């Protein structure tokens, strides 16, 4: 695992230099700084050059570093990722932009059969330090194919790191770490947070935790909301609202889906005894299943209630005018929290004893 961000770490006294910056700007700066520091870093994708990307995340990079460093490619996603693989084989560190989530699908064979497997295939001789940036998720009124949450596909593919920032500081720090990583990283950028702002200094970006570590964004005692990317602000808002109900919710921002930070997540759930996993992606077969299952495996005896999930419905992403009904919002999160069996605090389970067929104690 790579360590965090650049040498320049945050400094309390530099506070005055901080100005509001958007996540898009922080991402842009991360690429710029990485390119300036390491000539092996190359950016490629559709419209990343002259246009600066449809979200302007690569704005100015071609101007500053030239067309060879930030390159407009032909319109072919498998070709983009496939050539990036070849570039990485020769020692470059390509940063690839997929224009939208659903337009990464043509590159899945390259991703699943090569990017994820090359290091392992060659016993470590041929690592592939490729960063694959994917704007993902909904909430921006995008038409079909522009709002997919595709993280489940990436998570199910051993060999990939899967990272997603929820804050401006993480956008910078995690993208720097992704580019510096010797492993391939699928870097999921929550589209609807591109324009989210925070006070942040490009000159002295604060150090962030490395890839693989979750972060408790809000401490609380009643229950833990486990989330990532676009749903982090939703959960923080829900936690504020929950105070009225008498719940003090803890919010864990996973930051990295792979590697998964069992330690931070389980420590929180063991403390609170209750958990809700929140994400936009469809529930069935989505990340929440994995997360809930592993929490349950590890914290069963600390759980007052089953780990619940609040997720997108099991439907294709809706058209713009209906997306609000699909996206998990504050109310749905609070409804799930309410279903965490507060009345129970149960200490005995009558149905558990004397069940017919309960086995004889085995010797094991």
């Amino acid at each position, binding site marked *: 695992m790579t360590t965090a961000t650049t040498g320049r770490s945050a400094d309390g006294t530099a506070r005055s230099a901080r100005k509001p910056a958007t996540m898009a700007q922080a991402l842009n700066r991360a690429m710029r700084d990485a390119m300036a520091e390491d000539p092996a870093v190359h950016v490629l994708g*559709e*419209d990343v*050059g*002259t*246009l*600066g990307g*449809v979200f302007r995340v690569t704005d100015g990079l071609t101007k500053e570093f030239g067309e060879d460093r930030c390159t*407009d*490619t*032909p*319109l*072919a996603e*498998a*070709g983009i990722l496939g050539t990036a693989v070849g570039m990485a084989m020769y020692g470059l560190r390509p940063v690839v932009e997929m224009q939208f989530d*659903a*337009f990464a*699908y*043509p590159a899945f064979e390259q991703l699943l059969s090569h990017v994820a497997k090359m290091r392992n295939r060659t016993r470590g001789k041929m690592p592939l330090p490729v960063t694959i940036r994917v704007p993902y998720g909904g909430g921006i*009124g*995008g*038409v*079909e*194919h*522009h709002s997919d949450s595709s993280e489940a596909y990436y998570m199910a593919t051993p060999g990939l790191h899967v990272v997603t920032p929820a804050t401006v500081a993480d956008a910078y720090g995690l993208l720097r770490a992704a580019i510096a990583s010797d492993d391939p990283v699928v870097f999921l950028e929550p589209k609807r947070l591109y324009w989210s702002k925070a006070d942040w200094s490009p000159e002295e970006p604060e150090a962030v935790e490395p890839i693989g570590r979750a972060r408790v964004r809000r401490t609380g005692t009643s229950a833990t909301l486990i989330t990532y990317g676009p749903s982090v602000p939703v959960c923080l808002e829900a936690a504020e609202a929950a105070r009225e109900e008498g719940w003090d919710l803890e919010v864990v921002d996973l930051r990295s889906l792979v590697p998964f930070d069992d330690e931070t997540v389980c420590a929180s759930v063991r403390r609170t005894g209750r958990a809700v996993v929140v994400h936009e992606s469809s529930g*069935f077969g989505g990340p929440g299943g994995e997360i809930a299952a592993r929490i349950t495996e590890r914290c069963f005896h600390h759980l007052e209630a089953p780990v619940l999930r609040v997720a997108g*419905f*099991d*439907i*294709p992403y*809706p*058209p*713009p*005018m*209906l997306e609000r*009904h*699909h996206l998990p919002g504050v*109310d*749905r999160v609070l409804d799930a929290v309410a279903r965490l069996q507060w009345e129970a605090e149960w200490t005995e389970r009558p149905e558990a004893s004397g069940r017919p067929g309960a086995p004889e104690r085995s010797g094991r």
Partner: protein
Amino acid sequence: MTVLEQPGAYRPAPPPAWQPRTDPVPLLPDSEPYRLLGTGADLDPGLLRTLYAHLVRGRRYNRQATALTKQGRLAVYPSSTGQEACEVAAALVLREHDWLFPSYRDTLAAVARGMDPAEALGLLRGDWHTGYDPYEHRVAPLSTPLATHLPHAVGLAHAARLKGDDVVALAMVGDGGTSEGDFHEALNFAAVWRTPTVFLVQNNGFAISVPLAKQTAAPSLAHKAVGYGVPGRLVDGNDAAAVHRVLSEAVERARRGEGPTLVEAVTYRIDAHTNADDATRYRGDDEVGAWLEHDPVALLERELTERGLFDDATRDGAHDEAEEMAARLREAMNGDPVLDPMDLFDHVYAEKTTQLGEQAAQLRAELDAENAENAAEGGR
């Protein structure tokens, strides 16, 4: 005669099962785009008038749809201003039972085929993904993932041919879309199966901001045809008569069972990529200006005038009809559509799964609670 059947060719003769079977020479496109307007060619006045009315209407449609984005009535609109000749010709060369496979930019082609403009714009309005029944006008859903609909056009044409039906499928794609693997695979399947499919590439110079020179090094996109054993045709995409002629020939060839054709129409996207795009970032006004002088509507108007076919009635008729269409469209788009969020669960599968049933019940309860709250507030 194939290259390997030529006298003195390679020995031993390759086994018949894998002999290349096409003579490359007739497949190669002309060295410059085919044109009819301004050449004095023999042209049907009725067709020219029909094309003109459609072009005027198409231009108005583009203007109106763009205006609707400014009023927030469309989520987004990819304009085909400047490309109306291609859009219109693609629709007019087809018969009733033929199929059109539009790309995301090609709502105008659907409208020219007879679809109600408001229906054609459903996806871009954002009330549902496809606003129309594809079987009504035999127009496949607009394809947003570029080039992915090309194999659909091949498969549909193949199925129709196997059933013995007289159906041609015409599929539209952009210059950028030709770089996708799907383009390649579709052309190849069509060629091997000799399906009645016509591929129309609108080379409008750009894929969003990326100019053709960064997209391909080919002599022309039509030259790609030869690599599939398919004839390639290069046509001036702003010359409505020429596009109509070339596409008609391709459609008739397909209908005769002679297989697919690849047509490249050289044109230009006058507007930005969509209303959300800023074209000044990647091209200059002079470039746009040069193309405005080769405007498809103006070219046809000039031709009609030169042939003495243009009078006030023709012009006014076309424009009045266009204004009527625009007014109807504005009216249809004015006001918020009434949508039922419960539809979200109804078409995922033929029957709702248990799980979707549960989720629908959840949303139903939420909506009921919302309504009750609203009613309570209203009642106060």
